[in-house]
């Protein structure tokens, strides 16, 4: 092919310019340390980098949120620990007070400490977190959740639990509401509660058995009514919710009163079912999936009730116990009454302690989960960072050797250009 001088010149210059541009691009990459400095450098990679950087930023959001939850749960855990210790102390006081040997004065002192503890528990319930918000008020963060009034402690928060985002589409509660922690505690054994009726004259008290069979218990109430038979033995009947006596064949752990007249009203009919049982202190009576014991010496016409348990707050438990201890017993009946209340309260304090332990276990479980998630998030973040780096960042060794090669080529292009341009026939004529 014929070569024109201008073509030779243009090709030489083009070559030099191209090499210069390449070397400059490599130099810019080395100066910034990045392969892609602006989207037009590598449009496809730029879009991918953008997406990855956003995912990376989102991991930071999750990590921040996880940090927030951890901080709040740790505050809650500390508060729950002091609430648990307080309930234990109250329990110790109740055990002291249940000792028949102590006198009225001592009981009074115990009652005074108990009142103090109650106020302390209220202030624990009203703890504020680091942001000045009430920890246990649900979403009512600016309303003091527990107020001690003449009628006891009322809850003024709500049941709204706050969830924070800890992963794509995954949330976790950053606390527990006050009603759940302090208020909604089932009394009795959690299924039924027992009590002696007002006006009992004997010194008997009733205790609910902890074991229940929930599939058999359908929320019925029972009343245990005491009497005496012709032999002078103490007997009792169990009345169901409608006031009808319960057939003893459906009750376990009782001995039927042999003196009861089971003759049917119509001759020839089968005998009537036995309903009157002989009383034996401490015997466990089981029916309809629940069980209870009656201890001490109940008298005829005394009565005890067994009914579905209700919510009782920790505050009420302590308050009622203090009130019971503040009464001065006049006789054995009064003492049995106090004994019953202390027993009930001990059971209920166990429930309160269990609740606090449950909530603490829940908090601890969440903290463990957060640790795991935290580790996972950090790993994901590391992976994403590496990925972004792979796409965006420069391989320096490669870039530096590339630059050297480009500069070498540039120099060669320049030298060959100069040589070609200097080589003209005109020089020889």
């Amino acid at each position, binding site marked *: 092919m014929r070569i024109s001088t*201008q073509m030779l010149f243009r090709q030489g210059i083009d070559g030099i310019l191209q090499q210069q541009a390449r070397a400059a691009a490599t130099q810019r990459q080395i100066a910034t340390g990045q392969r892609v400095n602006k989207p037009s450098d590598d449009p496809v990679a730029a879009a991918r980098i953008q997406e990855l950087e956003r995912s990376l930023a989102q991991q930071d959001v999750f990590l921040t949120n996880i940090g927030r939850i951890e901080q709040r749960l740790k505050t809650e855990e500390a508060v729950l620990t002091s609430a648990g210790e307080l309930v234990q102390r109250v329990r110790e006081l109740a055990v002291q007070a249940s000792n028949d040997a102590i006198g009225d004065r001592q009981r009074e002192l115990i009652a005074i400490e108990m009142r103090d503890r109650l106020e302390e528990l209220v202030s624990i319930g009203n703890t504020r977190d680091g942001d000045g918000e009430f920890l246990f008020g649900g979403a009512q963060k600016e309303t003091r959740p527990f107020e001690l009034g003449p009628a006891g402690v009322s809850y003024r928060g709500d049941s709204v639990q706050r969830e924070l985002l800890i992963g794509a589409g995954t949330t976790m509660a950053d606390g527990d509401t006050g009603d759940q922690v302090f208020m909604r505690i089932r009394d009795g054994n959690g299924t039924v509660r027992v009590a002696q009726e007002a006006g009992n004259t004997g010194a008997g008290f009733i205790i609910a058995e902890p074991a229940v069979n929930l599939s058999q218990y359908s929320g019925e109430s029972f009343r245990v009514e005491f009497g005496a038979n012709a032999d002078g033995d103490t007997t009792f009947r169990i009345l169901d919710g409608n006031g009808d006596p319960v057939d003893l064949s459906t009750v376990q752990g009782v001995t039927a009163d042999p003196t009861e007249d089971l003759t049917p009203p119509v001759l020839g009919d089968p005998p009537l079912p036995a309903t009157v049982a002989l009383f034996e202190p401490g015997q466990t009576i089981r029916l309809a999936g629940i069980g209870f014991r009656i201890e001490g010496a109940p008298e005829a016409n005394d009565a005890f009730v067994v009914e579905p348990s209700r919510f009782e*707050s920790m505050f009420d438990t302590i308050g009622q116990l203090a009130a019971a201890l503040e009464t001065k017993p006049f006789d054995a009946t009064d003492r049995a009454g106090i004994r019953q209340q202390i027993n009930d309260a001990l059971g209920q304090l166990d429930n309160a302690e269990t609740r606090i332990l449950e909530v603490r276990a829940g908090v601890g479980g969440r903290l463990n989960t957060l640790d795991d998630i935290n580790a996972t998030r950090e790993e994901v973040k590391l992976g994403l960072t590496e990925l972004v780096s792979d796409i965006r960042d420069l391989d320096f060794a490669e870039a530096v050797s590339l630059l050297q090669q480009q500069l070498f080529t540039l120099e060669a292009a320049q030298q060959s250009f100069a040589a070609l341009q200097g080589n003209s026939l005109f020089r020889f004529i």
Partner: protein
Amino acid sequence: MADPLNISISGLLAFQRALSTTSHNIANATTEGFSRQRVELGTRIPESLGGFSQGTGVQVNDVRRVFDGFLATEVRTATTEQARLDVFAGLAGRVGDLLGSRAGGLSTGLQTLFEGVQKLANDPSSLPVRQTLLGEADTIARRFAELDRQLETLGRETFNRVESSVDAINGLARALADINERIVRSPGAANGQFPSDLLDRRETLLRELAAQVDVRTVAADDGSVNVFISNGQSLVLGQRANEMSVSSGDFGADELEIRIGGVAVTSQLGGGELGGLLDFKREVLDPVRNDLGRSAVVLADSFNTQHRQGLDLNGQFGGDFFDVGAPRVLAARSNSGSGELSVAVADIGALTGNDYTLNFDGTNFSLIDSSTGSAVALGGSGTPADPFTADGLSIVIDDVSNFSAGDRFRIQPTRIAASGLSVAISDPAKIAASAPMRTASSLDNIGDATISAGQVVDFGDPNLLTTSTITFDDPPVSYTINGGPSVPFVSGDTVTVNGFEFQLEGSPTAGDSFTIEPNFGGVGDNRNALALGDLRDARLIAGGTRSIVEQADILISRIGATTGAAQAALESQTVLLNSAQDQLMSVSGVNLDEEAANLLRFQQAFEANARVISIVNTTFQALLAATR
């Protein structure tokens, strides 16, 4: 008479001409568009001397321009495409850099906004956090507006460059007409002898024209060249140039109309800088502005919808969080009716990034997607009660009788939406972070039935924000709502009260009660903030296939792919152009070594002829001396 003196003189003259031509070549070795010239020598007509003929010397037949028309056409074609790609790739790259910049791009801005929402969800009652969110919302709104403003500036720049390109085309067309005239009137024109240097000059002008726009040339017998743009509209016809002009189109300044001698040719123009500019506006700038606007509409609309469903710190329902630019309607200047349209976005999921044209044929309205040219089915009847619906838009026409047949309207649903994006609230307490309702079970309940957190299903219910109590009857197989009639209870069933929906589950006891109440004072509740945060990944765009942030990625990757393809094509086109230029130069270009050799050759020939004259002279002197 064929005497040696005359023959030598013819040689002297011929080689003088050859030396002149060579020196002309050397002088123009670097002149752009110059084609080397060659002296064509031939023998003079021989003298007949009876039985034989005697040569009479040499003559210059022609000073020929070494040129290949096909190669020149190839160079022009390559130039046109290279110039188009150069402009297109450059501008598209600028759009990509604008949208993808880390500091000013959408992706980081959207991420920061949603981080602000997360901070709100973490501390819904904190006023500083709320203020931060407002600040971040303002930043993203300004970023949208700023990006749109820069794209608009780029649009104006494109318009200006179109104007200057058209000016350049007109200048070149006039110069071509002028040079045509000079060629036709040149002395040798009648014999088909055209001045080489003028032909070169014209070829250079044609190449410059090709760099502006794609043209076809047809050579006429009289030596002139006629220049047409692609559809056959003539730009230069012989010695006359037709004026090309730019004006705003039927729908206003946003759409350019280029005419030649009154005939609209915009859609036929391609190639060159002008073609590149028009392609850029049509394929990149307008769609990107529409897409950016669509993202703004989706952000504003989804945020507003969710925000209106929450309660603010004052216990009021949230209002609009963002304001956004409404769809733009442009009536054609040629419309004879006075009818007007109002267009609103009805469904962000169905919204496209396209523009539309609404046509009225005297009885019916029809909608054309201007970007694809295909018809779009219209639902509804166009009345306020039953608006036309198409592609997520609702179109209301004021009165059919105000429209005339042939009326046309351009609808740009999202073109100016981004520039109109702004934060609608300024009071941080008015950010609605909490859910409007809360549920609770009574502390006196005996049974273990629970009530779910519930959700609002009808925000229009006038009694939504009222407290209701659900109390179980004895036996607890039914319940009453606010003391009303008994409703049978089925555990887990959904109950709806005053537009609020929830589930009661478990086994209640007679007398158990549950309340649903307005969430006043629930400053720690973040449920609506969480719902706002979920919008980050909610697939709301393009029929539920993309989220807002994914749309930002797609915007970048689409423009990136376009730019990348244009850059690659530009590179290969440049190679193609260089090779075509090399081919042409290989034929027409001056090689100085060759000219140096010719110089020697012609000098030697000249010297030889001069020597012949000297010998003839010596011979003549010898003859004179003999006769003396």
